[in-house]
């Protein structure tokens, strides 16, 4: 372990920071010697420099009082990010790694405070790529008001990982009185989403370039804690929130139906999906309900709070496209049913494996 965060000053004098003077990262940068220190200094400290953190230690030291000021419970989460390609329209792996972990904290009703950042780099990665990712992470964290306070760097042989893997863990504090849970959905509750679904999944598939489609779809990657804070302030009785990442909307709805043993009914014509994403899915034989999102939450709220919740979501820049897409029912517990645009009904099941494009 090596700390990423060091104080810029030691014994009152500025410490000399190392520079990486080669274009690509090699195994030497993971060896624990000068090359590694140069990499940490030049890339990570340069990006994540936090004042007031303990210098040169193997752990971040955080004041309990700072936590207690915000609520009565800690939320703690971790997630690993392995996206291909590293850069995609609307973001890169760094933005994803910050937003994703912030969102995992926020959907529990927590105020995100501190993150860690561990990177596993495949030898041969251009230094500039790593620098760009680190800077994006720092900028995203700063904008979100969270601090990256500890980290780790490993370099592995070519083929042992794919360019760059990032793990971020996060801690936050849950405000008093908020108690969200997947099993709390009750028949009669209303289901809301905060905007267009499937953009991230479509953007990533499109960015891989296999399809030679020229449609521009940007990932919706965003930190949602501000939006969630707005919602929870307006409707503290909110039952449940979850970010609809891998497996998309369909997966989250199935998780709710299963955990709370309720039925869920959604309406295809009220489910917001942009026409570019629909067209993309038509061509490939994919279902947008299963496409990943990185800036969308599914909200379950009591029916009497539905209008207040929708108005709160819409009042936030990341919730302008919010919509009420369905209801929780007592019909067929454990199942998600969709009323199709055509007027028929279908079951929306959990995906078996990865969604694979259909032959014809």
């Amino acid at each position, binding site marked *: 372990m090596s700390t990423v965060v060091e104080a810029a000053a030691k014994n009152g004098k500025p410490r000399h920071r190392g520079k990486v003077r080669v274009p690509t990262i090699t195994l030497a940068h993971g060896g624990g010697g000068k090359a590694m220190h140069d990499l940490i200094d030049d890339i990570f400290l340069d990006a994540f420099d936090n004042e007031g953190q303990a210098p040169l230690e193997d752990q971040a030291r955080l004041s309990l009082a700072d936590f207690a000021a915000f609520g009565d419970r800690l939320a703690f989460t971790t997630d690993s990010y392995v996206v291909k390609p590293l850069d995609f329209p609307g973001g890169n792996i760094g933005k994803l790694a910050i937003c994703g972990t912030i969102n995992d904290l926020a959907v529990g009703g927590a105020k995100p405070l501190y993150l860690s950042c561990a990177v596993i780099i495949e030898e041969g990665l251009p230094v500039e790529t790593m620098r760009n990712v680190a800077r994006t992470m720092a900028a995203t964290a700063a904008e979100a008001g969270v601090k990256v306070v500890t980290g780790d760097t490993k370099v592995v042989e070519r083929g042992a990982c794919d360019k760059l893997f990032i793990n971020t863990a996060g801690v936050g504090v849950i405000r008093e009185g908020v108690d969200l849970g997947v099993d709390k959905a009750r028949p009669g509750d209303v289901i809301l989403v905060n905007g267009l679904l499937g953009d991230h999944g479509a953007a990533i598939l499109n960015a891989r370039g*296999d*399809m030679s489609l020229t449609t521009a779809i940007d990932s919706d990657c965003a930190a949602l804690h501000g939006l969630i804070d707005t919602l929870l302030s307006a409707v503290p009785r909110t039952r449940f929130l979850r970010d609809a990442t891998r497996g998309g909307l369909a997966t989250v709805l199935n998780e709710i139906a299963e955990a709370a043993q309720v039925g869920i009914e959604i309406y295809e014509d009220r489910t917001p999906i942009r*026409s570019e994403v*629909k*067209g993309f899915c*038509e061509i*490939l*034989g994919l*279902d947008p309900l299963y496409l990943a999102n990185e800036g969308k939450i599914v909200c379950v709220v009591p029916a009497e709070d539905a209008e207040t919740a929708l108005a709160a979501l819409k009042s936030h820049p990341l919730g302008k496209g919010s919509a009420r897409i369905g209801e929780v029912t007592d019909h*067929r517990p454990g*199942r998600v*049913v969709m009323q*199709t*645009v*055509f*007027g*028929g*009904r*279908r*079951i929306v*099941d959990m995906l*078996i*494996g990865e969604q*694979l*494009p*259909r*032959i*014809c």
Partner: protein
Amino acid sequence: MKYVDEFRDPEKAQFLLTEIRNLMPNLLKGRTTPIYIMEVCGGHTHAIFRYGVETMLPDGIELIHGPGCPVCVLPMGRVDDCVALAHMPGMIFTTFGDAMRVPGSKESLLQAKANGADVRMVYSPLDSLRIAKENPDRQVCFFALGFETTMPSTALTVLRAKKEGVHNFTLFCNHITIIPTIKAILDSPDLQLDGFLGPGHVSMVIGNSSYRFIAEHYKKPLVIAGFEPLDILHGIWMVLKQIAEGRTEIENQYNRVVPNGGNTVALDAIGKVFELREFFEWRGLGSIDHSGVRIRDEYSEFDAERRFSVPALKIADPKSCQCGEVLKGVIKPWDCKVFGRDCTPETPLGALMVSSEGACAAYYQYGDIEKVHDTRALVEEMV
């Protein structure tokens, strides 16, 4: 979405449903069984479930989900051959996405990939040819499968490979043809069918004259239909109308895409590259004469079966599977002994559970809601 939403209009659907309901009393007079209509094509099956078309139909009409999912009807022995090819040293094996999960006797292509084979998903055989040109020191094999819909693009790829002198490209040919298969279904003694929805995309290539024997010899109506839910509903109405009026004809609902004579450029390419096999094995249906094609001798250098040694072992379908009976409409998916128990989309035993176009997987995942629910409840009680 332009040019798509028009074909999903719920008001027009209600209009057609009213027309269909009006036909029903006369159609059912004197019958003890419902009207059985088979959609031959897997694309139709997918759309029927995707839009819940079946849940909208009045009582007295049953849709039989036919054999038109090329991924589903592929026998296990052929998948084993794919896996063997994929594991050959230096081989890059390319395939359409939904063929990745089809179980072989030991591995699927997805498992072969996890176990070290270089299996790559492509969207067109031309992608495969491009990979061959980019990797001149490796062999690249394309898993060619599908009905006449995908055959032209494979044929054109072979013609281009020949013209460009690409020597490290082959295909493992599993293309099948629709007409002998419909004939085999019609000849089956336990069949109860009143009419067909004909495959839109296949017909775009082969035209509509090839279906004439169905109307003339077997006296069944067939309506070629498109893949949007309104197309399907319209097609069903046209079949019912023929029955009501005592007609048996080949009609074309999908005339915005299907020319009566088919696509001669595509047919020429198919004719140049492929010839009929004596017979081809189908999962669930057994061997059907002249139902598959292979590569002609002039293009044998592109034929993986001739260029490499493939095991070519025949693997019998699991005994407990009743895919054949489901395909012919003799039983419904949920009547099968293993449906939802030993045979699920995660661990498919039978062909029809493999792809979302397969009748069983479609019922399992999208559901005829009440029936699936009942079956699942039943299954859960029994387990």
